[in-house]
């Protein structure tokens, strides 16, 4: 695949790629822009190669995610080691329209699987490819993430109802 074809694919996926980068960066716009730029550079310099153009989106999302993880490591930010780690629930007020706030409350892996499946319309298998984990593990994160997010939505709805 030549550079022009690659650029064409990247342009087509640009919006989704930026949104995904933002989601992986805890919705930090500036960091997402930097990470996306770095990911494109990796690709255009040939450090990451696309073997199957049909899997371009999965491939790009995976590169973005790993670029962000690398950046966090360089910055000394701790990346959760326990894939199934579930933080203890804290009683916090959740605004039902604060979608990003609610998503942020999910553990990293659950958040990424949920975002890939529900937001980006990917399959669990594709999300597993992005996260470089097996499908079974991805399914576990998917189920737990769904459960946790539902609880948060319900909690926010209850708070809203009580306020009325």
């Amino acid at each position, binding site marked *: 695949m030549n*550079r022009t074809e690659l*650029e064409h694919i*990247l*342009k087509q996926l*640009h*919006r989704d790629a*930026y*949104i995904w980068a*933002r989601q992986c960066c805890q919705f930090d716009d500036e960091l997402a*822009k930097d990470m*996306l*730029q770095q990911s*494109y550079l990796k690709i*255009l310099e040939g450090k990451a190669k696309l073997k199957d153009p049909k899997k371009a989106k999965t491939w790009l999302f995976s590169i973005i995610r790993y670029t962000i993880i690398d950046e966090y490591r360089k910055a000394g930010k701790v990346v959760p080691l326990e894939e199934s780690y579930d933080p203890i629930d804290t009683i916090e007020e959740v605004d039902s*329209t604060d*979608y*990003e706030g*609610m*998503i942020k409350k999910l553990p990293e892996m659950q958040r990424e699987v949920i975002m890939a499946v*529900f*937001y980006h319309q990917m399959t669990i298998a594709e999300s597993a490819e992005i996260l470089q984990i097996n499908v079974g593990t991805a399914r576990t994160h998917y189920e737990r993430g*769904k459960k946790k*997010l*539902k609880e948060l*939505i319900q909690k926010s709805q209850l708070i809203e109802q009580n306020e009325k």
Partner: protein
Amino acid sequence: MKNDEMLHSFFSEMKKQDQQLEIPEFPEAKVKAINWWLPSGIAASFLVGCFWFFQLSQAPEAPAEVIIISLEQGENNEQQIIIEEKAFIDTWESTTSSLLTDF
């Protein structure tokens, strides 16, 4: 499934909100232009070097005319300076060279 509808609706609202997001421009990749100054400079230096090398390696041509000044002793034992003009230096013969052979 009913609960999944709750999630679908949540994400559909989130997407609506994301419509307001300012998406950065796709970075136009700059084609790396070759800086021709560097190779041109190297080539020019090489040519100048070659020119000088061949200039130096050529044997200098003998001058067309040579003035030979020699000091000789005259009949009355006086010193005299003889100035001769020759076409080439290799045709010049020392005035005392006979001493080396004719004795």
